[in-house]
């Protein structure tokens, strides 16, 4: 409206419009968390030194600084933990009144809520995820998960009509590094609700929130041995899987390891559930609410640096709106704030480990080599730490590795389609089947697409939503068994006649 302005400037020169609006750093204080110099193994209600005498260093991936020395549990340690869980199962937990079990779990839920800021900071510190996500997603969901399954503990017979569900025994649980505490909650809450005891192995790179969880277990006064935490790398997991006195294995992680576990357990009669990899299709139709779809694309692949098994890593755009969607997407990517996970304004944090960073780098290089076109928004990355700029590939052929393999990083491959049938065919053309996304304003098409997609979770006009009441798990090589909801109890109970 300058043309109607008069020329008399009353405004002081100092108030001239600055050239930019840089948000000042808004770091969450890390003082709320105390990280010990070293941790033992949590067995039988207390920390014990590892019999293996082995330790490794866990770091802050955003600063490449050591945080703590972590025990590498060996065979004897795992055995000790399983014995503790067995004893607790037989003597304390399985014959406790279910309503009492429920109250313990409610206590845990409340304690997690009370200490949520502390956990959120620790999760971001050890895992590299933005504090906004650990604060607004991981922690609320973890607490909600315990609250949800707490209520099931004394109502199991209503979940399994005509049956009297009984616990299985000792559950060995192995979880990944992408949502350390949330995956712990997904594993421990239903197992305990159903009357099992657990030995849980957190991921090698992200043990700290599980170790802090031991303090919640202590505060909740859970009977000793009901929850045991053994830290270590894949060797520890292998010991847990092959331990003869473990009745059930629940694993979340890569398809490769999942298959190895299934082979190890072959013939043992042990129960198994697997939540493995994915290469989800996120399908945008030309009638979609485009600005919201773009948000869904971004949330689908850049949430948690793309370290999400159900990430929408293959974007299928209807050809008629391809240019528009790409323009909007690129524009939106330029607003993503990559950096310090503890900064409250960070959208994309640090890559979890050097190993993962290298893997992402190698796959991205393969995409370039195979002829895909890469776009990365201008982005200033911190000097230290593991970072990867949000990346999108166009001109991607279905046969490229970046369209086939799970990258588990902030890397999106864009493909186009012309008809709904083509979209379904291409979307299903993968050994995985964990999740899928559909964006269209047409109701009947949503339902037809949801029916046609071979995936355990279908997000229509949304993406990456999770809830304790909502079953989650895969088709095909993305695994079997469900976590969440009534269906999430099934892996942890025996029914009559089994």
């Amino acid at each position, binding site marked *: 409206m300058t043309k109607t302005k008069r020329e008399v400037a009353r405004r002081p020169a100092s108030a001239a419009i600055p050239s930019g609006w840089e948000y000042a750093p808004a770091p969450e204080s890390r003082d709320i968390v105390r990280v010990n110099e070293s941790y033992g193994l949590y067995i039988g209600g207390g920390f014990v030194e590892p019999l293996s005498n082995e330790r490794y260093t866990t770091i802050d991936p955003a600063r490449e600084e050591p945080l703590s020395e972590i025990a590498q549990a060996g065979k004897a340690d795992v055995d000790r933990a399983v014995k503790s869980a067995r004893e607790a199962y037989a003597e304390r937990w399985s014959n406790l009144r279910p309503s009492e079990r429920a109250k313990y779990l409610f206590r845990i839920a409340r304690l997690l809520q009370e200490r949520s800021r502390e956990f959120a900071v620790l999760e971001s510190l050890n895992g590299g995820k933005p504090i906004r996500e650990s604060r607004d997603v991981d922690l609320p969901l973890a607490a*909600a998960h315990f609250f949800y399954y707490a209520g099931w503990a004394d109502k199991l017979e209503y979940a*399994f*009509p*005509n*049956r009297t569900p009984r616990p299985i025994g000792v559950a060995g649980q192995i979880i990944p590094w992408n949502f350390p505490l949330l995956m712990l909650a997904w594993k421990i809450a239903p197992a305990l609700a159903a009357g099992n005891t657990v030995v849980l192995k957190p991921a090698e790179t992200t043990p700290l929130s599980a170790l802090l969880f031991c303090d919640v277990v202590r505060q909740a006064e859970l009977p000793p041995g009901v929850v045991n935490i053994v830290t270590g790398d894949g060797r520890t997991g292998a010991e847990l899987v092959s331990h003869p006195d473990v009745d059930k294995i629940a694993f979340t992680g890569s*398809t490769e390891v*999942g*298959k*190895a576990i*299934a*082979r190890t*357990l*072959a*013939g*043992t*009669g042990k129960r198994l559930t*697997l939540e*493995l990899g994915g290469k989800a299709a996120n399908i945008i139709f030309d009638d979609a609410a485009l600005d919201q779809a773009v948000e869904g694309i971004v949330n689908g692949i850049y949430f948690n640096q793309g370290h999400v098994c159900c990430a929408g890593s293959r974007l299928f755009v209807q050809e008629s709106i391809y240019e528009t969607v790409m323009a909007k997407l690129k524009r939106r990517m330029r607003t993503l704030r990559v950096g310090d996970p503890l900064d409250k304004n960070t959208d994309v944090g640090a890559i979890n480990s050097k190993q993962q960073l290298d893997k992402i780098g190698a796959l991205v290089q393969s995409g370039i080599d195979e002829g895909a076109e890469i776009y990365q928004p201008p982005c200033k990355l911190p000097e230290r730490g593991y970072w990867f700029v949000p990346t999108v590939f166009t001109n991607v052929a279905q046969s490229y590795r970046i369209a086939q393999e799970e990258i588990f990083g902030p890397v999106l491959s864009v493909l186009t389609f012309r008809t709904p049938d083509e979209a379904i065919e291409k979307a299903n053309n993968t*050994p995985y089947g964990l999740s899928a996304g559909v964006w269209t304003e047409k109701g009947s098409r*949503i339902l037809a697409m*949801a029916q046609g997609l071979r*995936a*355990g*979770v*279908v*997000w*229509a*006009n*949304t993406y990456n*939503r999770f*809830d304790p*009441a*909502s*079953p*989650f*798990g895969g*088709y*095909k*090589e*993305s*695994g*079997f068994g*469900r976590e969440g*909801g*009534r*269906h999430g109890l099934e892996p942890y109970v025996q*029914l009559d*006649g089994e």
Partner: protein
Amino acid sequence: MSRLVVRKTYKLFIGGAFPRSESGRTYDAEGANVARGSRKDVRDAVRIARQAGPGWAAMTAYNRGQVLYRVAEMMEARKDELAALSGGADEVDRAIDRVVWYAGWADKLAQVVGSANPVAGPYFNFTVPEPTGVTGILAPEPPLLGLVSRLAPVIVGGNTAVVAASEAHPLVAIEFSECLATADVPPGVINILTGLRRELAPAIAAHMDVSALDLTGADGDVAELERLGAENVKRIVRGRPDAQSPYEIASFLELKTVWHPIGM
């Protein structure tokens, strides 16, 4: 006056037809030359079962239930023949009743197994069961009731099946196939192979296009079969030969959860 009977040639049941084994081999069982299915027969059966899958799964549950009920009708009509080749009339009665029982489940499953999930947010969220895909079944004894008890829950959920019949008592399985062939079961939905378990079972367990595996009737090296099945993350079930429950059906179902926002 005696009359020379016309004997039946016992062949495989694949894609609604009764082919000989592509290998041309037979083996002696129950006094007959029974087709000795090969790895290639397994391959053909799986391919056909995969092709039949979408159509069978897309059929309305009501229709699937009626097809199963029709199977029971056909079994009732061939009761004597089935009895002669199995453990007798009692086994046949129980097998027929079991098929009827499962037929009635077709259009109730989604209500019992599925759910509407109260998530904490403005989303409509529901979970529905869907078939897993091609299911390999090693039929347990007794030869008819065991087969029917493991097959019916697989089929009623919308899966297709490749069945290895009892090696020692295969004849009733072929007799049963003739019931299937006349019961409006779409070709390829159920495929029944006879032959040697040590040949058929590993071929089925290792096949990358078999999605689930029922090892209830496995008598050999179960561990090896499970190892083979791990390669494509097969859903592996070891149930009871005589089980009858919706939980048996659920073992061969995937659960799909769909989210949609609720907004104006």
